[in-house]
């Protein structure tokens, strides 16, 4: 009888331990998902800050890829490309990695101080340099940050 009791006890204890492990895994998955969403929110906020800065004289730069902004400054009088190149949003510093304009849209790539990177597609007005809409973020991990480390 004792071996049977020991076997039954082991099954009960192992079963409950497995169930508890599963419940903790679910909790960890939720925390991980929350952390990812908060990072995405910071990237979304950085893109909104870019759009806020790309108004008035600085909107002129929307017509040029960011790599050409230094030379385009002559065509965009009274504007400062550094206002579009980065800043602080909330308590997180962000920087522009790349801006590529197309006919009626543009591809924006921004990076946070912690290395997280995201890209957005911005709808542009075809007549005047102006942003009309912004897409959802495409998360791209933190490759550059890890490389720097």
């Amino acid at each position: 009888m004792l071996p049977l009791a020991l076997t039954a006890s082991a099954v009960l204890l192992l079963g409950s331990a497995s169930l508890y492990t599963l419940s903790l895994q679910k909790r960890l998955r939720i925390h991980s998902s929350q952390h990812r969403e908060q990072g995405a929110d910071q990237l979304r906020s950085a893109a909104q800050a870019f759009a806020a800065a790309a108004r008035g004289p600085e909107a002129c730069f929307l017509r040029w890829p960011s790599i050409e902004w230094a030379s385009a400054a002559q065509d965009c009088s009274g504007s400062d490309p550094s206002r579009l190149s980065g800043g602080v949003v909330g308590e997180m510093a962000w920087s522009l990695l790349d801006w590529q304009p197309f006919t009626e849209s543009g591809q924006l790539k921004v990076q946070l101080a912690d290395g997280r990177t995201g890209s957005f597609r911005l709808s542009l007005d075809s007549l005047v340099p102006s942003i009309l809409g912004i897409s959802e973020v495409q998360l791209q991990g933190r490759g550059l940050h890890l490389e720097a480390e």
Partner: protein
Amino acid sequence: MSLLEVVVSSVVLASSSSGALGVWNRAAIEIQRSTQLDEHALQLETARIATHRWLQSDAASSVVIDSSSPDCRFNPEALEAAVADRLPLGSELSTHWSADPQGLGHWLELSVDVLQAMPLLKRRLLFSPAAYGLCKQEELSS
């Protein structure tokens, strides 16, 4: 089978059953909490997406911009009322809008008002009217 074996077996089985029951109970509480957290996280995400989509719609352009301000900025009261009216927010969800100190836009803070929700679920995002083409009129007129 001696009496001693029966007693020892009973004690072993009773102890392990009690222990397993305690662990099952904790696991059930943990699963219930996780499910609740999952539902609240989904509510926050739904509210965020709904706000983003509403600002992209034509309906937003006529009501959310502060016409008395020379800069293109949201009218916080109109924004809060419009978003609260139009979004199917759950009763446990609360929204709070605050102006960005740098004037970049307004911050939306979404949170769940449930004491049991530990840790507190919160989302915080910046929304700028310029990102939704809502400053177009102002730019054309300037």
